[in-house]
């Protein structure tokens, strides 16, 4: 059943309009980031000659080398912890029997409803306390920025959904071969759930890269300030120097957008499958 081309034309027009709305702000960002200051504040749409030096200036003035390095470190630590801890917990919920399973699982899901705003005050105090009594300070340091995010209900739920899809026969044959839970998890379940772990890593990466409220609360010095907060601070300091602001924005967005282009299929599928089963 092929429809008249005219009908498709209407469809394409609306879809293209949507795409334009989605992408124009990004194009405008790039455009402004390449303008000189007069063009940027004067309301030009395109730069007359691209000023590539804007990027170098923004990079140096905003101290992005430090912030980017901070974010990379934070992301690496958080994701390592998250993958290990959440895999273990998700496996227990998916494949093991123990007393209190439903209670613990519903407690876990209950944390999803708690607004971030409720946790700010208590978590700040907890983190400050742990830093004061422990061997390393937490505020202005990596523990406050990473450890609270190493286990999340969302990640455990996502992995559990995937682990539950691993066929039961595999467990039976693994047991006959003398494998226990640990070996089964490492050698069979994890390799089969590579897509889920990839999705988790992507979500973790984006979450850490974009985080703002919590880093503002727990960093008072630039030593461990992540890139989003760095950009915000730069936006305030740079005033109305729009071209440099936009160059900073491009620098911040680029890693995420590149990562997204390479992994978008996994990512979107991860969202559609997990989102709906909630």
């Amino acid at each position, binding site marked *: 059943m092929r429809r008249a081309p005219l009908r498709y034309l209407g*469809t394409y027009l*609306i*879809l293209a309009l*949507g*795409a334009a709305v*989605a*992408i124009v*702000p*990004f194009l*405008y960002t790039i455009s402004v980031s390449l303008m000189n200051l007069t063009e940027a504040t004067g*309301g030009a*749409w395109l730069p007359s000659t691209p000023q590539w030096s804007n990027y170098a200036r923004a990079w140096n003035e905003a101290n992005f080398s430090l912030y980017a390095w901070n974010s990379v470190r934070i992301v690496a630590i958080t994701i390592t912890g998250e993958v290990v*801890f959440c895999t*273990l917990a998700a496996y227990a919920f998916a494949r*093991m029997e123990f007393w209190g399973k439903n209670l613990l699982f519903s407690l876990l899901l209950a*944390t999803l*409803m*708690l*607004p*971030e*705003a*409720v946790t*700010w*005050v*208590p*978590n*700040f*105090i*907890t983190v*400050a306390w742990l830093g*004061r*009594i422990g061997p390393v300070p937490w505020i202005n340091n990596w523990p406050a920025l990473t*450890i*609270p995010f*190493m286990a*999340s209900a969302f990640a455990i739920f996502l992995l559990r959904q995937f682990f539950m899809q691993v066929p039961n026969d595999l467990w039976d044959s693994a047991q*006959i071969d003398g494998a226990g*839970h*640990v070996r089964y998890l490492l050698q069979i379940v994890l390799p089969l759930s590579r897509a889920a772990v990839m999705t988790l890593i992507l979500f973790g990466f*984006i979450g850490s890269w*974009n985080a*703002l*409220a919590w880093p503002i*609360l727990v960093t008072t010095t630039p030593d461990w300030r992540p890139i*989003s907060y760095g*950009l915000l601070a730069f*936006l305030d300091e740079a005033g109305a120097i729009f071209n440099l602001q*936009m160059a*900073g*924005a491009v620098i*911040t*967005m680029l890693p995420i*957008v590149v990562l997204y282009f390479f992994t978008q299929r996994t*990512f*979107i599928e991860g*969202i*559609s*499958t997990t*989102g709906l089963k*909630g």
Partner: protein
Amino acid sequence: MTNAVSTDVTQNVKQTASVGRAVHRSSRGARNRRLREALLAYAFLLPAFVIVGLFGLFPLIFAAYQSTLRGINRIVGTFDGLGNYVRAVDVLTYVLGFWGAVILIWLALRGIRRGQQAAAAAQEPFAIWSAPGVALGASLLFALTWIIRMLPLLLAIPDQMRGARNTPEEFRRLLGEALADPNALQALFGTLAALTLGIVLAVLVQRALDRRGQRGNYMSPFVSATAMIGLAALLLVMTWNELQKQIAEAEATSAGLDIWSQIVMISAGFVLMALSWWLWSSASHRSSNASTFLRLGGAAALLVGAWLLIAELPRAIGAGDPVWWYGLLATFYYSMGTIPPQLIVALVLAVLLFQDIKGRTFFRMVYFLPYIAPFVGTAAVFKIIFSSRPEAPVNAILGFFGLPSQLWLNDPRGIFNLLIPSADFPVWAAGPSLALVVIMIFGVWTFFGFNTVVFLAGLGNIPRELYDAAAIDGAGRWPQFRHITLPLLSPTLYFLTLYSVIGTFKAFNHIYVLRTGAALGTTDTASVVIFQAFKRDTRIGYASALAILLLLVIIVLTIVNNRVAAKRVHYG
């Protein structure tokens, strides 16, 4: 069960004729295996639950505790009861406290009644479970007391470890001292005693019933009922103390006391509203005469209830914290202004994309881009696009059509006042400020792609045969959409609505980035108000109280959303 142990056991059974002993052995083996598996599972769960418990669950108790402290700029403040709540919402505190306790007690009783009905249906004893249940529930309450008594002691430790005394030995000594505090110890012993008693009783009851061959376990309604009634009692006592304080104050200043009348009137207003909703919804099951009557009654209750609320609430609101009330109003605007547009746009795009067309992956990828891009960056672009300078893109486009430039993110005026300049609306009726509208546009732009992707997944779950059958019956595209797509998409729609409602009430990051001083706080939603109370004003107790109030609002919205959806969602 085809595992090695049970095969082994089966052979045992065959070889030795003593069947009974073998079965006994197999059950013991199974029990050991189950125990080992459970222990391994707990070990697997431990790290994740330490983190989730400390940073995801414990904050709720901690925030509730903090909200009763006067703490300004200090970690440990003095106890202030519900004072922070009174500062935020004034008389509504008492209404909330009282009705919150009533709802808790009602939930407790309902849980017990349901358990009773289930037990009666299965012809199993029920009341006997109350003994271990109440003991375990009491142990939960004791544990809560212990946590609350320990918290200030633990929080004070770092202050005592300053300077040269900051050593691990000193910490261990202070921790020991805190643990040995008589008040805390009392609560700890209470917890342990109640816990032991509960476990012993539970085992005894289970054994006694096992012998009679009855296996049902009805302990949990009693556990939760005890805990809820305990919390309700606490809430009532705190509400009462706060009322006493207000009354004493009013007497001291010999001011007129209208708290009581206000409490009664506001409560009556809410009760009448609930009653009218109940009458209205029960009318649909009745015959036409009765239903007309019920609907009339419902309408009358609604009118009277609304009148009471309209007469009384503004006074209560006026006495509360205007910043907080405006924050809630802004959150409401933001929610109403972003969710319907983004769902409609996403639905249209998803339905169009879900055809046999080229470039589907490309469109999907582009729509999703705003959702994943760092919002500090995208918000910065929007700040420039919607800048108040006449040369800024949006103002330039307006100018091209001969329209005047707008202040956009710097404009605190409500849009109704802007659209109809002659009418001078009061703050609460003027609608969201123009600045907030820009933030709404940003919100829709950020999230429509996410919604489109989820809708696409939902569309993919609808069987194709339904459309083929409808096409054979001669149904056009619109009837197909109306009678197949929409009903079968309702679970997705429900999920997205709930997700967006909770999301908009939690929203913080982009609103914080897009707020300007010139907008005079009209863009500060509830989360931003809480953040400012904490970070800028360091009013720790007050910020906690506001956060708890926000949580209450979210819980109520979730329940209402579930109720409404339960009737409409079609799980095909």
